[in-house]
């Protein structure tokens, strides 16, 4: 009792202590359920293919192929799959189970195939049936290798489970994603350290189990232990049904995985909570535009804040247009017709791409615009986010418009790490967002887009029309937010969260207190 109290009090005294416990628990449950499913599929499958050599190639090849798919791609793919897909814990568990399959199938198969053939022949020669041979000889002799497979799969799963946060699966990845998007090392560690401990703990425990089960004798105790573990695992598996969110009078608001998005999500959430009787569930930090769009389309989330320019080019795949009103009109109409999504009025500010350099460079070279910068870029290194590099309205068009050339091929970087890299002179120019709170703090400046290359990016709430029809109070509640937030206010809130490390909910609450509607 005292020790537990001591640990708890210490844990709560370190930053994020309570949430670390919660997320660690989530993480453990994710991994345990995924492993239970993977074991109950992988091991029988591994056994079956020892009996069917032709099938073995196909199954092992398939499991191998799954393993090579990047985890974010699997999560993205699962969003539009019914029943097992969407966002939240279920698709996260499905993806984790898929990844755990290969080591389980392969080790079971190899373990059994590599048993000394004379032993198998002795068994057959003495008149053991195939089933008796399997359960009394092959599985016990392959057990060490099978458990080694479980061990590898578990450790891999603990790592991959951090990515589950990208689709709202919770777990310690929540800290890591939030930490990366806010350039907060402490937050990253709050996710990474417990996750490393879980991996180490799982490895130690399974290593012990491996040794214990492969030592001779004590079969009764071994069966007892395996029985207890099986009961625990089954209990967890049943617990999966408890994870399915009950579809009550709850509205789910999503957001992409950067600070401004989380703040905007929280603004929508608090506004709905304040003006209606609905409960709001928050599924923030989803892994990017595509995941949010798919999720709101299928109703996994009911709404989130999108940017008109992004909607036009990334979702509707149209060429960039510079007239903000025209962009809004096209997006609103296409969303309504193609996706049954309602695009609400702009929240008032624009978050456009911003080409950012260090203030000292800008002052030394006396440059303010992108056209002026173009003559210096051949000596500079650039760092861009993946989206910016890939999108038509991103780097390729920008380079053409201004004739930009760089010392090296621009480096692909995470949004959250980019500013730090710029401040630490690892790169000399990055593409950020105009509302980023870090820009003033890290002594950076935004270059003026003097040729008006970037299309308008007005922030607009996007909602699922079924939800709006069902809960008619939502639309009027959010109508008040039209034109409500200025770019400066947004930058300020971003700064509060990113640099003052204040909780999003608190910053948003303060904003509403200062700006009642």
């Amino acid at each position, binding site marked *: 009792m005292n020790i537990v109290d001591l640990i708890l009090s210490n844990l709560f005294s370190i930053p994020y202590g309570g949430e670390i416990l919660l997320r660690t628990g989530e993480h453990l449950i994710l991994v345990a359920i995924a492993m239970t499913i993977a074991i109950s599929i992988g091991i029988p499958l591994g056994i079956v293919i020892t009996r069917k050599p032709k099938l073995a190639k196909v199954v092992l090849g398939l499991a191998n192929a799954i393993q090579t798919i990047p985890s974010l791609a699997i999560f993205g793919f699962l969003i539009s799959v019914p029943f097992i897909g969407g966002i939240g814990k279920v698709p996260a568990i499905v993806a984790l189970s898929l990844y755990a399959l290969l080591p389980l199938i392969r080790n079971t198969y190899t373990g059994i195939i590599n048993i000394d053939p004379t*032993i198998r022949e002795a*068994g057959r020669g003495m008149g053991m049936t195939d089933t008796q041979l399997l359960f009394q000889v092959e599985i016990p002799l392959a057990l060490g290798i099978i458990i080694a497979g479980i061990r590898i799969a578990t450790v891999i799963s603990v790592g991959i489970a951090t990515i589950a946060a990208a689709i709202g699966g919770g777990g310690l990845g929540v800290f890591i994603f939030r930490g990366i998007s806010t350039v907060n090392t402490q937050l990253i560690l709050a996710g990474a350290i417990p996750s490393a401990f879980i991996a180490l703990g799982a490895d130690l425990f399974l290593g012990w189990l491996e040794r214990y089960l492969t030592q001779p004798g004590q079969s009764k105790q071994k069966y007892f232990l395996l029985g207890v573990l099986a009961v625990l695992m089954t209990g967890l598996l049943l617990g999966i049904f408890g994870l399915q969110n009950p579809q009550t009078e709850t509205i789910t608001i999503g957001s992409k995985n950067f600070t401004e998005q989380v703040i905007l999500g929280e603004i929508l959430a608090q506004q709905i909570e304040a003006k209606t009787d609905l409960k709001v569930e928050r599924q923030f930090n989803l892994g990017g535009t595509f995941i949010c769009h798919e999720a709101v389309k299928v109703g996994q989330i009911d709404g989130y804040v999108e940017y008109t320019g992004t909607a036009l080019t990334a979702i509707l795949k149209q060429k960039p247009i510079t007239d903000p009103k025209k962009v809004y009109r096209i997006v609103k109409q296409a969303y309504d017709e193609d996706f049954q999504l309602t695009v609400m009025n702009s929240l008032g500010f624009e978050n456009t791409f911003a080409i950012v350099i260090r203030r000292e460079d800008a002052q030394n070279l006396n440059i303010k615009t992108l056209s002026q910068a173009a003559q210096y870029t051949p000596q500079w290194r650039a760092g861009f986010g993946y989206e910016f590099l890939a999108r038509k309205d991103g780097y390729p068009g920008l380079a053409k418009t201004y004739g930009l050339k760089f010392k090296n091929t621009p480096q692909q970087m995470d949004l959250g790490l980019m500013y730090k890299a710029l401040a630490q002179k690892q790169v000399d120019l990055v593409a950020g967002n105009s509302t980023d709170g870090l820009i003033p703090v890290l002594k950076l400046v935004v270059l003026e887009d003097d040729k008006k290359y970037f299309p308008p990016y007005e922030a607009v709430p996007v909602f699922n029309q079924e939800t709006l029809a069902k809960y008619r109070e939502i639309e009027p509640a959010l109508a008040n937010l039209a034109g409500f937030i200025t770019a400066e206010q947004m930058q300020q809130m971003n700064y509060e969260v990113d640099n003052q490390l204040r909780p999003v909910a608190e910053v948003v609450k303060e904003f509403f207190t200062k700006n009642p509607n």
Partner: protein
Amino acid sequence: MAKSPKLLQDKEIVVEFQDVSYGVGANNLLFDLNLTISKGEFLVLLGRSGSGKTTTLKLINHLVIPTAGKVIVHGRATEDWDPIQLRRSIGYVIQEIGLFPHFTVEENVGLVPSLEGWKPKTLKRRVYELLDLVGLEPGKFAPRYPHQLSGGQRQRVGVARALAIDPPILLMDEPFGGLDPITRWEIQQQLRHLQAQLGKTVIFVTHDIQEAFLLATKVSLISEGKLVLEGTPTQFKRSQHPEARRFMACCQISQ
């Protein structure tokens, strides 16, 4: 009444090969094998490595299925037997012994009886009896694992395991290959007595002619998949068949 069937049984045919051939694909390993083994006989299949002796043995317990001809065990072709039942009525000791490394000596020896659903008490009594029979002190050896035994002890356990449910036929595939000469001689002696005492029909594979002469009541010489000579050890010694002469030559050198 007790005596007359016994006399008849002496000539009872237990295993019979009828024009048996066996091959994998186009590659024939055994050609037109004809062989009869009577009850109580100790038949040694003698031949060089790769001559087809082991395959011949595996045809008897249906581990290998003839591509032509029939193997008849207890009056029924092996194909008509339930292979599990057939194998449980035949004791089997193989080259590498094939003891289960995760089973104790007791569990290894008691395997077939336990598959047959024997009660634990009867089973234990039988295991102890068998260990006694092969000259291993039951109290000492029953709880050991195969890796805790010497080569000779392992062989004895292998023999005990094959005898567990008292099968009328015993198949032995070079069981004493890896033993030192003295242990080997001891265990050969023991097997001979055991066979005489229990009246088992034994089919024994070896490439060691001295072992063959020591144990056999009948020697069958197999060369390149064909049965080339069949007879008592005395008949074998007198044979002019070139393969038999070669085997005899080795025998003389080593003496």
